[in-house]
């Protein structure tokens, strides 16, 4: 099995304007989607991320507080998934509830030794 990192890019503005009913839809959709992934053996882990964080740059390790992106989109969470191939993960990610309210998902395959051997 190969591993994939699924990054959830969320539109902060849209998220903060969701109605309680829409939030409930998205909460329930995430729960049932993650449940489905777990039952099928694809889910390794997954969490939400704080909006603010710390950025460290350069050889002097300059530490800066976030937010450090000017984009209205931030990475709001991630899922670590496993599957036989990228295509399977693409099909799973298409159903990710992040898309329901203007979000984008990004799949990054985890690099493995055997890919290059």
């Amino acid at each position: 099995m190969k591993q994939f990192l699924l990054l959830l890019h969320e539109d902060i503005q849209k998220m903060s304007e969701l109605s309680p009913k829409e939030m409930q839809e998205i909460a329930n959709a995430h729960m049932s989607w993650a449940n489905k992934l777990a039952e099928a053996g694809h889910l390794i882990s997954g969490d939400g991320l704080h909006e603010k964080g710390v950025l460290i740059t350069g050889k002097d390790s300059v530490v800066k507080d976030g937010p450090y992106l000017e984009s209205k989109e931030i990475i709001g969470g991630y899922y670590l998934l496993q599957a036989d191939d990228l295509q399977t993960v693409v099909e799973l990610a298409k159903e990710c509830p992040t898309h329901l309210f203007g979000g984008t998902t990004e799949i990054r395959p985890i690099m493995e030794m055997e890919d290059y051997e």
Partner: protein
Amino acid sequence: MNNDLFPKSEINYRALFGKLFSGLLGQFGANYVSEIEDAIQNSFLKSLKIWNVNRTPNNNENWLFIVARNDVLNQLKAKYNQSNSELFESSDGNQVLENDKDLRLQTIILIASLAIISTQAKTTFILKNIFGLSIDEIHDCTLLNRETIYKSINRTKKSILQECELKQTDIQTISANQATISIVEEILYAVFNIGFDSFNDKIEEIINRDLCLETISLAKLLFKTYNSESTSNLLAIFCLHTARIPAKIENGKLISFFYQNRKKWNQELFQLGLQFLKKPKSTDKFYIEALIVSKYMTVENFTENDWKEIVNLYEILQQISSSPIIKLNYCYGLSKVGKTELALKILSEVEKELPNEHTYFNLVKANIIGEVNPIESNSLIATTIDNLNQKIRKEYLLENELIHL
């Protein structure tokens, strides 16, 4: 009780909004409405991120309350440079949680008692903050434009600030006089009707049933607290209407009242509705309306005499209420007792009181003129179909109301 009326659901953010809003208002006072609204929104967003399949708090509601409460405190710290928020932190923050007291009715009473705000503005504010509807959803179900809704909510907020500062109102102990009870009843009646006739094209259901059930539970609490006859009659209306919900849709199609399978009506609610019906000392709007609904529901085959009784009841109702909808219903009754000409004359007057292309007006008029002028009747139905967003309602009109010429 029919289980279909109470579907099991996951955590209901919309319904929870009002409970959190009232609880926080009870804790922080009425001066921080905007901060509380933001805090609840933030707590919901946090729960979206943090809760997952393997990790949810033991008590979701308490978790959201604590997170929202801390959010308000953080906002106050930032705003008042620590001084004021310490005051709140020193009070027993968990008291409201431990008591688990539902302050929604208390909050509605507070809003209803505001002096200078219209009942419509109060209802709009309550739809948002007690029943958890967004501005868009309020627009969909009331047909008020978004700008009007936004402005009226802000006006109500300002009014709460001004009046509560003057009176030092404590939500936990506020009580209602008869005038305030009447306004609370009007507000609950409006919310129930919005839930009972949902025109939202985004939801397929024609009824927002949990909105109806929440209104019933608040009306019950109002009745239990103040024991007013008018509240009892209001409950009669709510129960009798709600009892018919299981029969309103069959195989995905809307079934109009006279064609419903009466065996599908919820008998417990039907009986409860009849029990709540109480003859008041003086004429009461809700009593007459409940009488009309009970008449419709207890008579299976309507004779002209039954229609005459209905017409009489609408005449009494018009003496105490000037609602154009009551006049429309009266006209329909008149057409059933052979007074179509009088009905059409009244309709032409009612038309001026309603917005153009009013759905219910068009339907009643189309029905009344159906026999004498089928072409105009069909044209009114066609206009209504064009104006409706909901598929199920369009289909109903296409299949049932157009006259084959």
